[in-house]
């Protein structure tokens, strides 16, 4: 227990930042910005330190009792730190982006305060060492994202916020019920302690299956599994950085990460397989992938199309978890990171188009590639990654997923993957074609919906650089996939622990 | 009292009990408010006599001062005695409608519970009801009757002053039952003493409220919720 303070310090950084931001006056732009960036950098450093420590075999854990029989446990393990690394890296970029995006708009203090609370919750989720702690941060995340979703305060935003709450709070309740029941059955289950549930004996298996279904209902809401995905497309009314946050980093990922934890660390992969739980996950995720891709095809709004694409892409993670075998685990975990990088890039780009040119619909994008080449390049990288073209990161995920499907004896899933890739191509390629190959206002035909010159470059630097950075990271993660500390390498490490232990 | 022959004491007790009942009745059914208040003062004096007769001289003194004098004063204050704004002399409000089952059911249950429990206390060995009634003594019986009357008044009347009167009568009935079932214990006297003080403060608060409400907007009854306990 050499570094018990590290997880606490990581969490405290964001909490403290949130408190200070709430305490600062609305006008204190400089103080708030430096606080935001400072906290994000410190946190990235701390997480990096923990990654290095874990690599050397150190252990970071801290716990204290909360009430009769439950403890608050923070513990950094290989799986958790992976998610923590993703969120703190993307956090830095999202914060930068948000600072530029919300320039001169009202209520920035509120926005950034809750933004920091959000990252604190996400980190808490990744560092939680038992279900109770996980639940605490999972619900904290729900609450701290609500003000971000309704940030604009328009009727549409408020309605979307209500829908969001209805879904997530009910999901949270289902999860709570499941977790409490598990606690009654088996006590305080720590992540990483194996076979507690398997030892209960066969007479409890039906109940365990029931509880699993209840908890998947709870987690599935945030993961946006069909048919629990309704809130996500509606939450598109939120500002672009919030969308990036919901889709790439925090909310959706928290759900997916929860499913990963539930299968690997609570039920155990063997027991889940034995109880046919994995088969259920495969079925529902395959359904989600295809259904959401089809829906995405029908969307004319850029953000709405991206939203349905998220629904479909996140289910790759669930699919990878559901396939029984180390390769699919690698696919699931690495996709957790890859999808985050790509989706953040895409949403940043969508935000850039909207801010600079006032573009919200896909048919307004004609020729935008020539007006905003760097942004469009980043968009292209993200979109090709989503389709899964080599050598992007998306290809790596799909490749391993396919191998995993064969390994698990479900080769028919390759058909699902192929179909979804085709659908991905069908809804992303037309956008790329419009961006680069259709004449538009950049060629003197017509006008942009609402053009604003935000900077000397194609748009404001605050908006452009984070976009380029995430795009670059997603490319790097693909090119350098076999290097140490790459997402793929780390996912392999986690998977080997899951299957060898 | 010790100096009186037993038969005389018993006769006195019965007489006192009957007088108490009569005064309670007079106080509760009278629509002329000043007369009702006067009846209440007489009732309180009789209560003081009863405490004297039950060998609780301290209680008698407290009842005379708090119950008769101060409560009486606060009641007449509520009437606006000697002040500019006087309450109307007669309560012309119709009684609360007896159709609300809920408003009757609860007080009735209340009363039956009190009566049953008092009976059970003496009925430990399983004597018959008629015998138990005989054992209970006239004061306890009258106490129960007064409780019933008080509850009736509290539920039926809408005029706030009359409800306040009903509350005071109800309280006295409970004191009587308490004194009978608990005997001459020091704890019982302490409870009654506390009860008397509470009743006084309640009456004072209530009286000043009635007065203020009448002066502010001529209100004599609460708009709704005239039911019993609910």
């Amino acid at each position, binding site marked *: 227990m050499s570094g018990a303070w590290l997880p606490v310090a990581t969490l405290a950084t964001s909490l403290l930042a949130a408190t200070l931001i709430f305490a600062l006056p609305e006008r204190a732009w400089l103080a708030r910005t430096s606080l935001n960036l400072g906290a994000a950098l410190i946190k990235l450093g701390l997480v990096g330190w923990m990654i290095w420590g874990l690599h050397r075999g150190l252990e970071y854990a801290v716990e204290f009792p909360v009430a009769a029989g439950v403890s608050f446990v923070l513990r950094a393990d290989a799986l958790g730190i992976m998610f923590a690394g993703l969120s703190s890296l993307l956090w830095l970029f999202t914060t930068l982006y948000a600072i530029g995006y919300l320039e001169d708009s009202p209520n920035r203090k509120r926005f950034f305060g809750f933004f920091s609370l959000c990252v604190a919750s996400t980190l808490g989720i990744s560092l939680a060492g038992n279900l109770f702690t996980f639940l605490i941060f999972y619900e*904290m995340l729900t609450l701290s994202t609500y003000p971000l979703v309704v940030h604009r*305060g328009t009727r549409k935003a408020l309605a979307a916020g209500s829908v969001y709450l209805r879904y997530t709070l009910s999901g949270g309740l289902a999860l709570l019920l499941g977790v409490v029941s598990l606690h*009654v059955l088996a006590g305080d289950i720590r992540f990483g302690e194996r076979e507690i549930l398997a030892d209960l004996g066969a007479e409890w298996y039906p109940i365990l299956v029931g509880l699993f279904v209840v908890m998947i209902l709870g987690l599935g809401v945030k993961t946006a599994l069909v048919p629990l995905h309704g809130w996500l497309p509606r939450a598109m009314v939120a500002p672009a950085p919030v969308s990036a946050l919901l889709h790439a980093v925090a909310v959706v990922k928290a759900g997916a990460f929860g499913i990963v934890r539930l299968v690997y660390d609570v039920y155990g992969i063997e027991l889940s397989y034995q109880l046919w739980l994995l088969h259920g996950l495969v079925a529902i995720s395959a359904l989600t992938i295809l259904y959401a891709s089809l829906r995405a095809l029908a969307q004319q709004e850029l953000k709405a199309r991206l939203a349905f694409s998220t629904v479909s892409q996140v289910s790759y993670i669930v699919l990878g978890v559901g396939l029984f075998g180390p390769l699919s685990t690698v696919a699931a975990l690495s996709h957790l990171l890859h999808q985050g990088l790509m989706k953040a890039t895409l949403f940043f780009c969508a935000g850039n188009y909207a801010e600079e040119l006032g573009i919200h619909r896909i048919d307004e994008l004609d020729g935008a590639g020539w007006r905003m080449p760097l942004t469009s390049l980043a968009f292209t990288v993200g979109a090709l990654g989503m389709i899964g073209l080599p050598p992007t990161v998306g290809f790596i995920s799909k490749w391993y997923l396919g191998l995993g499907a064969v390994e698990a004896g479900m080769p028919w899933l390759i058909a699902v993957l192929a179909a979804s890739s085709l659908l991905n191509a069908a809804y992303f390629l037309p956008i790329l074609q419009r961006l680069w190959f259709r004449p538009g206002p950049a060629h003197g035909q017509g006008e942009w919906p609402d053009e604003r010159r935000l900077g000397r470059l194609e748009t404001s630097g605050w908006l452009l650089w984070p976009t380029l950075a995430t795009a670059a990271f997603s490319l790097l993660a693909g090119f350098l996939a076999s290097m140490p500390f790459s997402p793929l390498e780390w996912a392999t490490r986690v998977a080997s622990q899951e299957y060898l232990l | 009292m010790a100096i009186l022959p037993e038969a005389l004491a018993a006769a006195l007790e019965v007489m006192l009990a009957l007088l108490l009942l009569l005064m309670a009745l007079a106080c509760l059914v009278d629509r002329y408010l000043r007369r009702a208040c006067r009846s209440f003062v007489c009732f309180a004096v009789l209560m003081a006599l009863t405490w004297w007769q039950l060998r609780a001289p301290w209680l008698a003194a407290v009842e005379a001062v708090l119950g008769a004098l101060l409560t009486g004063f606060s009641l007449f204050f509520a009437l606006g005695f000697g002040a500019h704004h006087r309450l109307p002399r007669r309560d012309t409000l119709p009684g609360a409608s007896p159709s609300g089952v809920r408003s009757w059911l609860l007080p009735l249950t209340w009363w039956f519970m009190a009566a049953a429990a008092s009976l059970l206390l003496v009925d430990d060995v399983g004597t018959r009801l008629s015998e138990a009634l005989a054992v209970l003594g006239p004061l306890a019986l009258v106490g129960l009757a007064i409780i019933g009357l008080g509850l009736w008044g509290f539920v039926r009347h809408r005029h706030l002053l009359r409800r306040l009167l009903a509350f005071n009568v109800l309280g006295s009935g409970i004191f009587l*039952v308490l004194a009978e079932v*608990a005997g001459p214990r*020091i704890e019982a006297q302490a409870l009654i003493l*506390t*009860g008397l003080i*509470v009743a006084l403060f309640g009456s004072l608060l209530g009286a000043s409220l009635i007065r203020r409400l009448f002066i502010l907007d001529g209100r004599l009854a609460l708009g709704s919720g005239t039911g019993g*306990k609910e």
Partner: protein
Amino acid sequence: MNALAVLGDEALHLTPSLWAVVWLIVWGPLLLGLVALYFPPHRMLTAAAAYLPVMAATGWLVATIAVSGPRHASLSLGELTLTWYLDGLAILLLLLTQTVLMASAVFAVGYCRTAELPSRPAAWLWPLLGGLSSGLTLIWIAADLLSLYVGLELMGLCAVALMLLPGEAEALAAGMRYLLYALVGSLAWLLGVSLLLGAWGRLDLAGLAAVAEPGAVTTLAVALLSAGLLLKASIFPLHAWLAPVHGAAWIPVSAVHAALVIKASFVILLKLWLLLAPGQMAAAWLLGGLGSLAVLWGGILAWRAQGLKELVAFSTVGQLGYLMLAFPLLIGTSEAVAALAWRGTWLHLAGHALAKAAMFMAVGSLVLSTGRSKLVELAGTSRRLPLPLLVFGLAAVTLMGLPPSAGFTAKWLLLQAAIRGEQWLWIGVLVLGTMLTAAYLFRMFRHSFDEQAPHLTYRRLPLGMDMMALLLALAALALGLVADWPLELLWPWGGRT
């Protein structure tokens, strides 16, 4: 179960210094209040400083009892003996009471000044708050029915008088109704007590628990006691008086009332049932059923409420319903279930007290600075009044039972108890109640986040008022994470170890 008696004999008696501390806590606030009647405080700091000795004494008492175990005290007045008992529960309730009272008193100083209350009634606020404090303290430490009666009445009369201070017709009418109900409630209580005294010849709880046998008289007595207490605690269906009273009262008064006064009746009720009706499972289920209806009906009323104060007041009705679930979960259940339910109940009580006081204060700030009291009129306030809304939000987290908060940990424990005891009905109640609570509390945010509303003019309030509310709300949150220490103090109780 009767171990209040057992523990009572084993427990130490109060040392003279502890006696002094107890007297200070019982009468100190009343004395301070009387001083303030003639010299009303004008600065929040003055009020806080004046209250500090009482807080310090409370802290010292808590520390002493926590370390050295429960204490027993008897007070002889001639032939009459009053018994007091200071155990973990009593001192924690004391700490809670003094915390909420101090915060409310400090808040009240600012409130009186900014709301420009008439000075004479405003001065009476102080002695009445002091009397309320004395009554509550007496109730927490009383171990006989006479002390409880005195405490209950002192508290009740002070509470009614506090409600009347605004002096408007609405407040007076609501107060009159409250007075009548409170008085009738106390008469029911008195009748119950007299039956117990007649049947068993004593009033001390420990002795009663030892000698009282279940039977018709005990049952009837407990029924009468309960009827009186349920009325005073505004438990469904006897809740009708609550909302009008709160709607008309001053904010600090509402805060104290909802946080503490109503709870006092519940605490007495629970104590009496555990001692006198340990086997009455059917009746306990009846109370649990009433609680469930309160959760649902209170939630629905709050959901439909138009006024801010009304919403918060109805929410109290619903939240009290959760507390009533303690009866079926504690009475006639196994040790493990009772242990969880016992802790969950007290945690919920404490969390709700802190959060509800904070919420009332937040509402007070909002109403005072906007001059509006309807929910729909608050559109757009989140931009101008972030702090009261933040407080409201934090308090709402506790009331909804979302983590991290005392409400959440309490719900966790209660759910666990219900699952273990296989009392599935209450699980449904807890789940439905949570959803309803979220539904009515988020209405508030929906309105306040609305940016398209016309902007109102706002009045600036002293920062100290909001800070007090914030401290209470944060305490309710923190209690959820550090609940272990206070909850272990509550254990063992009543002979179960």
